[in-house]
């Protein structure tokens, strides 16, 4: 890769897409860390492969397929959790891997060539102009909704009973939060891939926790760390010629280690 290509349109697209993802992940990731939902986010992203498969087989946009499958997944999971048949992580393990394998079976039966690597590890350098518009729109949507429910969501994350007693409709707020998470996964699959989505949610938030003293500042720092890592990660992958998704996550992890050793405040 030549240096003069640094500002090529595909790189600009990659950066804008990545920055959008970082901003959403900054806000949502904090709640995933606070609510201890890392495995939930992971399972949600695994189930997104089924959505991609359905999109390919039936011939429509894979983002919409992913969104629909993830919504069904989240609803089913919430329903089964309330039934209390199995423990949460067992349920997640079953649903995640079942939908992942059904997705792969569907893709292989469809007899179409699909670059699975791109879905598993992400392919940020192929983000199109059209997708950039989608990224920007969904970022604005998610962040505005999150801003609107922020205080209620933080309160019910701290204690659900207190929130209920203050007449907050906790079921509604939780459903909105899960929908935002689903929008994030459906959008983000393209950028970092199924296997690395959870890291975008968890690592910046966990890093930010070490240097934040309020929920808002943690989300802000988390978003900024994500943006920095996207920029460094993308250029690192271009100059050293390594896969982009892992390069971004590697950068995030470096930040985590540096911040942890310099500021060690609280283990998240």
């Amino acid at each position, binding site marked *: 890769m030549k240096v003069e290509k640094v500002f090529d349109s595909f790189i600009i697209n990659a950066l804008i897409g990545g920055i959008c993802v970082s901003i959403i992940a900054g806000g949502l990731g904090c709640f995933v860390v*606070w609510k201890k939902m890392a495995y939930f986010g992971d399972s949600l992203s695994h189930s997104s492969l089924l959505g991609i498969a359905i999109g390919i087989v039936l011939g429509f946009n894979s983002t919409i397929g992913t969104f629909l499958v993830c919504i069904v997944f989240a609803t089913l999971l919430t329903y089964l959790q309330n039934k209390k048949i199995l423990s949460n992580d067992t349920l997640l393990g079953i649903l995640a891997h079942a939908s992942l394998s059904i997705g792969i079976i569907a893709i292989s039966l469809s007899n179409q060539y699909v670059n699975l690597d791109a879905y598993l590890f992400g392919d940020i350098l192929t983000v199109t102009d059209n997708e950039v518009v989608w990224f920007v729109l969904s970022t604005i949507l998610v962040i505005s909704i999150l801003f609107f429910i922020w205080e209620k969501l933080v309160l019910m994350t701290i204690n659900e009973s*207190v929130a209920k007693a203050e007449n*907050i409709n906790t079921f509604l707020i939780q459903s909105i939060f899960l929908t935002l998470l689903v929008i994030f996964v459906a959008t983000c699959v393209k950028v970092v891939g199924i296997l690395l989505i959870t890291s975008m949610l968890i690592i910046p938030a966990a890093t930010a*926790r070490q240097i934040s003293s309020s929920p808002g500042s943690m989300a802000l720092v988390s978003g900024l760390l994500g943006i920095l890592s996207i920029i460094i990660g993308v250029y690192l992958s271009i100059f050293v010629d390594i896969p982009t998704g892992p390069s971004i996550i590697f950068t995030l992890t470096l930040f985590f280690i540096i911040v942890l050793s310099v500021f060690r405040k609280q283990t*998240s």
Partner: protein
Amino acid sequence: MLIKAENISVVRNNKEILKNIDLTINPRDFITILGPNGAGKSMLLKCLLEFFSPDEGKIIKSDDLKVSYTPQDFVIDKSIPITSMDFIMLNKNIKKDEINNISKEFNISEILNKQLSHLSGGELQKILITRSLIDNPNLLILDEPTQNLDVSGQLSFYKFLDKIYAEREISILMVSHDLHMVISTTKKVICLSNHICCSGEPSSITKDPEFINLFGHDFADMMSLYKHDLKHNHEGRESV
């Protein structure tokens, strides 16, 4: 009358958790609910708060009822960075000045800028109750507020609660095992074991056969002793 439970029953998994409960809370009441584990104490509070609707009976609320509630087992997860001040202001329409005033009133100014996760159990309860008093409720519902506190924490907490009850136009409904701590302040004790076994003034309840039946002779005797003791030491206790 602020709120009234009329003949309510709750059945869960074929078991009657609450059976024909009648309970009226009037202005300036201070009611303590006692009972063994699994007696339906928390369920009764949650019915009054309308988290659940009872299977039978109904809850009648007065129009000017303003409830605030502090739940059992309030712990703050260390992964959430938030100061006491920010927590008190969360989802409330209040200015920092007002919080400074209320925190002087309740002696919590020193812990206002501390992280919630760094507070002791007793400090956390005080912050929780301060938060719940911001909207000027007329009924405070507390579910085992001293569960995680050591003895000195319990003493200091009940002193804090006495002060609130004395200074504000408020009723208190509390689930607590510490009858010996509240016996001088509480006006009425209700013993719950899925149904109301007995209720009355703290001075007479320890002689009730149902009370003795529920908690045993030793506990009943100990309670009458405590009451005796506390009355004698009341002045001294205030100055602790």
